[in-house]
Each structure stands twice: as C-alpha cells, then as structure tokens.
C-alpha cells in the first residue's frame, strides 16, 4: 500500500499506477484499517445515503435552530428558484438551497455527515449531489467523488488542520470548499492534477477567513458561509475543468493556510472574542441567549 502525506504524492501514486485519486484513497483505507474494498465502499455508500436524507429533511421540515437565531433560508432560496426568480439559474439556486438545508439541519440537531466538520457539513453534499443529480451520474461515480474529496481532506489534515479552533474558518469551510472543488472535478472526468488544481484554487480564495461565530454557536455566519463555500467550489471546478491551472500548487497553498491560521489571533479562532461575534448586534443576541440560560 502506498500512503501519502501530500497532494504531490497523491497525484504521483495515481499517475504511476494509472488509477484515479479516489482509488488511491480507497487503497490506503483498505490497507490502514484492514478492510476490504467492498466494506470501505459500503460505508461511503451509507454516508451518501445520510447526505441525501439530510438534504431532503433540511428542505422539507420547518427548521429553526436550537437558539432560534436561524432557519428557513434553504426554503426561501428553493422557493425563489422554483418560481423562476433565480438570477443565476436553476442549478446554482439548487446548490445554494441544498447547502443551506444541510447546514440548517445541523443547527437544529439534525443528522448530518461531518465533512470535514459539522460546521462545514453543507458544502460537499449541497454542491456535489446537486451537480450529480442534474447530470445523471451513478451512485458509484458519486461515491468515487466522495473518496476524492476525502483524499484532499487527508492531505490538508496531514499538513495543516481542519478545525476552526486551530486555524479559523479557512480550515473548515475553506477545506470543505477545496475538497468539494476536487470532488466535482473528479466527477466530471477531470484528471488527478485537475482535481488538485480545483482544490488549490478553492482554498486560495478562502485563505484568511476567520472563525467568529455569534454567541459561540454554529449558525451565524457559518450557515451562509457554507453557501459561499459551495459557490466558491463551483467557481474553482469550472476553471479547473476548463484547463485553468493554479499557479501555486495545492501543497503550498495548504502550507500557507497553516501559517495564516497560526498567525491569526485566538480571538478569531472560534472563541467568539472578535470579528462578527463582537459586533453590536451580535453582542445583543449573545446577551439575550445568555439571559435565557442557567
């Protein structure tokens, strides 16, 4: 088995063996966790099923978050799209609605697949499954794309971090958007190199993004940032599939993300001591939530 720490290694293994990055990731899992390919694929198939259910539930049920601060955005976007009021077209409107649906479901104690985290769980399913459905891709192809996404997540986790507390929102929504860009590129037949370029472009665009949740909750600005992460993933995949390359290779972007994350003050890493979390409106909301507590 060949393990990998970097995107360069991931691409090399894929090219040398003439296999997809999804297959490289599957082979690594088989060997590390002593599983069969069927077991590994079955588990991802289950995760895909939960993703589909989370989209459906997020769009169908009346969602209010536990704090009451958020909910209903997915339905509004979906309804605008259905009524021909989308300005960017049906597909884009659906991607945004579905991303919001999963993130809103998360905030209301619904069942989601963390990818890579719960706070960024809307981006991958919202984008990938909408594009896959619109283009009639099979479950097997979608599952392969999810493994490709995981491959990017693995190289980010090995070289940097995936949590807002460690690296700011760039590490959560940035990583999720990067993974999603690679997954979409893989789904539409892009090469390993193109998928890595898509991941690099997406991550570059979100570098420096801080984690500043209002009242410490995974709601504001997290839910709408998921939607932005999805549109960013689409932007990056569209470019990569057209043959646009990232000038800075993915591994160097990841290292830059790590350095930026380390340089960010603690007040902008999930502590709610800075950024949006200390705006007058946020302070008012926080006071209200705290006065309702113990």
């Amino acid at each position, binding site marked *: 088995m060949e393990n990998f720490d970097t995107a360069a290694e991931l691409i090399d293994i894929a090219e040398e063996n003439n296999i997809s990055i999804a297959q490289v990731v599957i082979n690594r899992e088989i060997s590390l*966790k002593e599983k069969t390919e069927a077991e590994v694929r079955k588990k991802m198939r289950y995760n895909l099923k939960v993703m589909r259910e989370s989209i459906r539930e997020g769009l169908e049920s009346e969602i209010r978050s536990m704090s009451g601060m958020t909910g209903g955005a997915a339905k509004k976007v979906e309804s605008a799209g259905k009524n021909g009021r989308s300005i960017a077209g049906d597909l884009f409107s659906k991607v945004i609605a579905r991303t919001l649906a999963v993130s809103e479901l998360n905030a209301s104690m619904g069942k989601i697949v963390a990818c890579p985290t719960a706070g960024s769980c809307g981006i991958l399913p919202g984008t990938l499954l909408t594009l896959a459905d619109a283009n009639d891709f099979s479950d097997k192809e979608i599952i392969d794309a999810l493994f490709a*996404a995981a491959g990017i997540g*693995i190289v980010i986790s090995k070289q940097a971090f995936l949590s807002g507390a460690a690296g700011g929102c760039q590490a959560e929504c940035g990583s999720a958007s990067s*993974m999603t860009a690679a997954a979409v590129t893989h789904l539409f037949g892009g090469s390993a190199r193109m998928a890595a370029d898509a991941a690099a472009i997406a991550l570059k665009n979100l570098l420096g993004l801080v984690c500043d949740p209002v*009242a410490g909750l995974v709601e504001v600005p997290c839910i709408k940032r998921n939607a932005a992460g999805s549109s960013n993933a689409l932007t990056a995949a569209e470019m990569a599939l057209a043959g646009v390359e990232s000038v800075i290779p993915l591994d160097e972007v990841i290292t830059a993300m790590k350095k930026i994350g380390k340089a960010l003050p603690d007040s902008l890493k999930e502590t709610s001591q800075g950024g949006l979390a200390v705006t007058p409106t946020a302070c008012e909301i926080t006071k209200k*939530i705290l006065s309702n507590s113990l």
Partner: protein
Amino acid sequence: MDNLSVFDIVGPVMIGPSSSHTAGAVRIGNLAREIVGNKLKKIKVYLHGSFKETYKGHGTDKALIGGLLGLATDDSAIKNSFALAEEEGFSFEFSAADLDEVHPNTVKLEIIDQDDVTTTIVASSTGGGSIIVSELNGTQVKLRGEYYTLITFHEDRPGLIAKISEILQIYNLNIAEMEVLRQEKGSLATAIINLDEKINDNILRLLKDIPGIKNLKLLKPLI
C-alpha cells in the same frame, strides 16, 4: 497528524450542531452510563464554562441526557431525549457551576442509581468528539472510553496490584495502560487498567475474589 481514516474526513455521521458540544456531550453521557452500570434514578448536571454558556444553542443538555440513555452520537432521538428520559423513569436537573481550572467544556454529573448509590463524575469534551472523565467519586482519573477498562477499588496494601497482573497474565491479557491512585497511604486505592481486549466473567470473578478488592467495574469502549 496521524493516519486519519477517510471516514474521519467525510464523516462521522452525527447529530449536529457541534462535535465538541453535541457529539462529545453524548459520549460523556455514554461513558457515565457505562460507569454507573445500573438503572438510573436521578441525575444532577452541573455545566461549566462554554458548556454553561452555549448549552442551549448546541443542545448540550439534550445530548448529555441522550448519552445517559445510551443513544449513539448519530441517533436522531437525541433531540427528544428529555421525553425519553421520562419514559425511562429517571429525573434530571441542570445547574450552572464554576469547576475551577478545568477545560472550558466540562460537566459534573451526580448520578443516583436505583439502589440509591451516588456516582460523581467530572468529564470534559476535548474537541472533535473526544472526551475524558477526569474525576470519579472524588478520585482523579483519566478515562477516555477507548479501551476495555478495569477499575478497581481496593485496600492500599502491598502485593495486591501484583496479584491482579498475575491473573491477567495467566489469561494472556495485555495491559495497554495502567494507573494506580489513592487518596492517602493505607486507605482505599483505585487502579485503572486499560486492556486491549475484553475480559470474560470468569476472570472478572477471579479478580473480585482477590482479598482486599472491595469493588470492581469493567467498562466497554465507546463506539
């Protein structure tokens, strides 16, 4: 970072919104239930730090009770755990607490079981769903729910730990980690022994029969 599974990246499947404040709280409840090992009657929950401040928005309260009911971190029933606890017949109350120099996501549980035995547990959610029980009935411990864990309460006297390891050795059971703690010399001591595999009832009985062993608990690892 070590070799994460792909399912740590695209996964785990969980009930939101937060791996530390929701999934971690469920796992604390799971481990507390395992430690008590008896039907629950009454639970007092003291929330500290970020748990105290954000519990409502993160559903930390519902997650803890869900965990005490034995629900897994991906069980949609967690949202309705209060009603389920009522059906199960145990009562609970939440209060704020300042537990001093502990992790921000810390909770103290006072659990009374159906035999009116009280178990006190202090536990923290340390990120990504990982947890640690740092105090059990006033004794400092480190329980993470990763192993089959044998907890002994025994008289503090020479040779007793040797006897325990002798029995484990006979049955070829490997000790992954072990820690012996006591309140004061000559009083009651606690040994926490993490094992790579399960101990059967037979061995457990042999251990219980060691002179000086007052009580013994075996915890299963959390999923």
